């Protein structure tokens, strides 16, 4: 079964979403875009070391889901986690600081691009092993339901993750324990350099499987902030009210390569172009068509520009971690000693 390689036509149906929510969605998409563009530039300048995986072109998913979440909800994401981390409200400079390996980073430079975490914002970690965070996310959901807090957990993952064992164990476990969790598959059609449809025999690698565990599943246009926000609100609402887990598969595409300096040239040009034509930033036109004031949008864009400039400068100016930091926080007592 071959997947649709080109974006499906956008639904004309206009969702019933408040203006101020729409502005927040736009603000999120713009900020995530600006951040990723800058992260790429700083990587090419040699300032981001190691690796980094961008969500360029995929911003509407993090934006839409995060906007539908409550402040104390939990998110778990992957190595491709800048967008999901920022969307929960983690300040740009702390994220940029982490990418640059600075003391000011969310993890003090010890995590790096792949491991962004900010527990105070409910960002419970970015995990670099495919699938592992799905089972861990279940644990947070279980704990929330035991503690009776009403918190919902959201776990983001890629299409490629649907073929690893932990995915299977996570879905079954979530359903059997009726956990308040929403799994969000960002299906961008590609794993690293290999298309998902070459290694999966069903059309929707996440959604077509959810039923095998008794999970409700929904497929959504992942480049449409309204649509994502809408399905996420419903899935999260259901989880919060004891309705159990669900699966959202959001169709999307990355504008750039998989990671680092990868130009992504293994992908057919028409495919890339077709998807770029469906850039989530196209949301701007919808807002204008809905009669929103362009000046408000420009203000959002200007603020994002100013913030990313400030965050980059702050990160560049931030000190490197003290070398002693290497020897802290292995254990809860703060230290690293394995002996007396």
């Amino acid at each position, binding site marked *: 079964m071959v997947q649709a390689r080109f974006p499906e036509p956008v639904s004309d149906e206009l969702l019933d979403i408040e203006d101020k929510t729409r502005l927040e969605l736009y603000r999120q998409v713009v900020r995530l875009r600006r951040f990723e563009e800058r992260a790429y530039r700083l990587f090419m300048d040699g300032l981001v070391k190691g690796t980094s995986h961008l969500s360029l072109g995929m911003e509407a998913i993090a934006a839409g889901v995060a906007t539908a979440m409550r402040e104390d909800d939990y998110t778990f994401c992957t190595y491709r986690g800048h967008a999901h981390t920022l969307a929960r409200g983690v300040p740009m400079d702390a994220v940029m600081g982490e990418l640059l390996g600075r003391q000011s980073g969310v993890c003090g430079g*010890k995590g790096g691009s792949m491991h962004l975490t900010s527990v105070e914002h409910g960002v419970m970690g970015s995990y670099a*092993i495919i699938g592992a965070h799905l*089972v861990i996310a279940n644990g947070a959901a*279980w704990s929330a339901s035991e503690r009776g807090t009403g918190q919902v957990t959201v776990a983001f993952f890629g299409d490629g993750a649907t073929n690893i064992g932990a995915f299977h164990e*996570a879905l079954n476990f979530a359903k059997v324990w009726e956990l308040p969790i929403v799994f969000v598959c960002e299906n961008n059609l590609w794993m690293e350099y290999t298309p998902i449809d070459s290694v999966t025999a069903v059309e929707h690698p996440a959604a077509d499987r959810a039923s095998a565990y008794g999970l409700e599943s929904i497929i959504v246009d992942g480049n449409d902030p309204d649509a994502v926000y809408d399905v996420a609100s419903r899935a999260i609402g259901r989880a919060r009210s004891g309705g159990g887990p669900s699966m959202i598969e959001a169709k999307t595409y990355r504008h750039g390569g998989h990671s680092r300096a990868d130009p992504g040239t293994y992908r057919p040009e028409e495919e890339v172009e077709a998807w770029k034509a469906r850039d989530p930033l196209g949301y701007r036109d919808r807002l204008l068509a809905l009669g929103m004031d362009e000046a408000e949008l420009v203000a959002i864009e200007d603020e994002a520009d100013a913030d990313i400039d400030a965050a980059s400068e702050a990160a560049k100016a931030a000190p490197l971690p003290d070398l002693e930091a290497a020897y802290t926080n292995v254990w809860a007592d703060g230290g690293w000693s394995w002996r007396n």
Partner: protein
Amino acid sequence: MAELITYRDAVKRAIAQEMRRDDSVYLIGEDVGDAGGVFKATKGLLDEFGPVRVRDTPISEEAILGAAMGAAMTGLRPIAEIMFSDFLATCWDLVAVEMAKTRYMTDGQVTLPLVIRTANGGGLRFGAQHSQAVENWAMAVPGLKVVAPSNPHDLIGLFAAAVRDDDPVLFFEQKSLYPTKGHVEEGEIVEELGTAKIVRSGTDVTIVALASMVRRAEQAADELAEQGISAEVIDLRSLVPLDATTIIESVVKTSRLVTVEENPRLCGWGSEVVSLVAEEAFWHLDGPLTRVTTPHIPLPSADALEDEVLPSVQRIVDGCVKAVS
């Protein structure tokens, strides 16, 4: 007043002690509830604590440990059972790559107060896939604490310490010890992680042993005494943290070291203890540092063969005789 109970019953008592004390302690695993575990070590806990706090899981080791980890980072103190320690291989990513590293990677934002308890080791003729002693797998991974008690009293006290500890602890219950008995006093028992115990004093050679090997080391010490060799026996009890001080002080006194491990030879905890001594107490040594281990082979199933390869009292005696000669 002290009571004579089995290692198996000590498990149940240890879990109950902690679950009574702290509502945030949960027990999950395959068949841990009504069935009371395949080794019957959790029998009765379901009745006392109910199906919410003592909960059966699917056969999904990654999901079990994932649930424990995610819950630990958000306010619970879970105890997860992995039925046989061999099965840790099916969820090793969760143990070695997620639990062990998350606190460090997040620079301390995430705290993981959880215990993985598991039945470890051979001697039951279960064959190569259900008999491994894998405590050294865990010791080799920074970020994990590793405990392996040798008797009912220590089991309860160290288990309590493990549950109360804020780091992930792998708690190895040696399955050959389940039917063995020991005296346990009434009331709450809490010991400290990272404290070895000198179970027998001696002057000629230090024997360091763990879990199932402690009793054998003591028996070897008896036989050595008959030959006029005075052996000091240390029950290591915990591998991480490691009580290096007790080991080194003993070797400084005896000048000789023999380690006794159930695990296969290469890179076992014995090699770490030997290396520590070879670096820090070198000038006190009067003879080669000797390890008695299972040879570097998988475990065979047939009883005669399994007995052949696990360290015997005789091999411990021989190792000590060689070390002092």
